[in-house]
């Protein structure tokens, strides 16, 4: 019964992103160290640590951990020269593109999973981006997809690591004795504040054996939360408040200026 409930929960949670994992087992014990990440005025990014145990007694198989942010539409444009000036043109829209995507594995992903599995289980950011609008004439859809990944990678929003973390890297996956594994990835401060998921996959001989999904919630607290709520829910009041603050600052300045 508990097993069924867990499976049902997994099905519901897994809905869009990792849709096709429902046909595999979910007996991969895994957890995250930070289920709640709070954003206050001193927030400068965070680390996400995923650990778990390979259920195979002899430790066979490969571990892949994917930390995903929510998917949103994104537009990629190519610069064109018009009258000697470079302007944005030829827009291509992606209906779904992950706002954060980190994939960690114990050895290079291409050696673990076939290109078909990578595509099917959306194990790399390019596979997770859904092209929406037609690509303009002469444009190459894969070039746009690659540009999206390249630009987000530069912003630190897409990250890929294989093996244990090197000292100069911001993430990595380490295998320990007894099938224990630990994956660490740096969540930069510019990553959106939203609901994240850490998905753990066990591959053996290129086939997906087991998968597990754990939610990670990132939320604002304290003043950050109050300001953001005010700005989104009572935006008119928020605008008035900002103007009043400006007037007060100006009045104080004028007052001090006259005195001295």
């Amino acid at each position, binding site marked *: 019964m508990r097993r069924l409930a867990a499976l049902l929960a997994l099905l519901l949670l897994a809905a869009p992103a990792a849709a096709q994992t429902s046909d595999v087992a979910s007996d991969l014990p895994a957890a995250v160290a930070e289920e709640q990440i709070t*954003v*206050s*005025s*001193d*927030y*400068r990014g965070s680390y996400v640590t995923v650990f778990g145990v390979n259920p195979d007694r002899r430790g066979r198989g490969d571990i892949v951990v994917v930390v995903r942010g929510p998917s*949103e539409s*994104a*537009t*990629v*444009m*190519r*610069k064109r*020269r018009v009258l*000697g*000036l*470079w*302007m*944005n043109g030829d*827009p291509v829209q992606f209906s779904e*593109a992950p*706002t954060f995507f980190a994939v960690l594995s114990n050895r290079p992903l291409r050696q673990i999973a076939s290109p078909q599995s990578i595509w099917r289980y959306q194990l790399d950011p390019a596979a997770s981006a859904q092209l929406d609008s037609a690509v303009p004439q002469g444009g190459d859809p894969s*070039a*746009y997809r690659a*540009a*999206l990944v*390249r*630009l*987000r990678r530069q912003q630190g929003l897409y990250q890929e690591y294989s093996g244990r973390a090197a000292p100069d890297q911001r993430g990595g996956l380490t295998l320990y004795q007894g099938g224990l594994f630990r994956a660490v990835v740096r969540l930069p*401060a*510019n990553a*959106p*504040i939203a609901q994240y998921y850490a998905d753990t996959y066990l591959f053996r001989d290129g086939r997906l054996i087991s998968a597990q999904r754990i939610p990670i919630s990132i939320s*604002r607290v304290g*003043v*950050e939360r109050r*300001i*953001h709520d005010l*700005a*989104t829910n009572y*935006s*008119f009041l*928020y*605008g*008035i*408040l*900002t*103007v009043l*603050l*400006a*007037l007060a*600052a*100006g*009045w*104080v*300045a*004028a*007052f*001090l*200026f006259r005195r001295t």
Partner: protein
Amino acid sequence: MIYLPIAEMPVNVLLVLLVSGGVGFMSGMVGVGGGFIMTPSLMFLGVPPPVAVATGASQIAATSFSGIMAQTRRKSVDWRMGMLLSIGGVLGSVSGVWLFERLLHFGQLDLIVSLLYLILLASVGFLMVREAYHVWRGRAVKGVSILRRPVKTMAHTLPLRMRFPRSGLYISVIPPLALGFGIGGLAAIMGIGGGFILIPAMIYLLRMPTNVVIGTSLFQVLIITSLIVVLQSTATQTVDLVLAALLMLGGVVGAQMGARLGAGLKSEHLRAVLGALLLIASAKFLWDLVIPPTEPYVLRGLW
């Protein structure tokens, strides 16, 4: 470091205070608003352009309000003219915010903003350097002759004329409305107050006496920037209260120190230096628009 709730990024408090203080210092010394330096500086610090433009407006509102307090004591605000300019400005900034949102939608906002800054910084920088050069050479600037106001401009011949006792004018209401409209639109798109365009336009086009020009333009700038803050927070939700507070603090303190220090220095030297800085900044904008980009693709997602 402090995390900005709307821009969703951490910034170095000291750095923001230093930049806003520096801009305030310069504007206090030379006597220009400084919005047209503040907004590009914020973008340079990595603040997303929509947030920089919308939040910069609140800082301009603060400095212009403190300016008005000083000007009203000297009775140098033409309220009737100010109201008329503001009516035009309100319509202009509403259209400006609409255009801003459209340009953002079509992905051309950065191009238009860069182009407008290029034109504006280059022309203002050129005028400042030229003026300083003329003063240095001991020649009077031509603009002085407008103080005798026998010349009739378009403002005097168009219909719908109205009396402005404080300025001693009897002119058509159309030029002030149109002028206010244009400034309001530019202010909404570029995150500037527009005083440095408005003041010469009031002197040369409307033939207003110079003693009421500054106070009246400050009044219009205050109305427009306050409106833009409210409009942007409801339409695009890009006003960052924490960033705004930092900018106001730095800008206000900087402007006071600048004004006090500037009194002891020769203004033509300051103008020459600022003018040269503006020319360099405009060259940078031109360079970025003309040279082939290293990354041919641009991404528009979160902003």
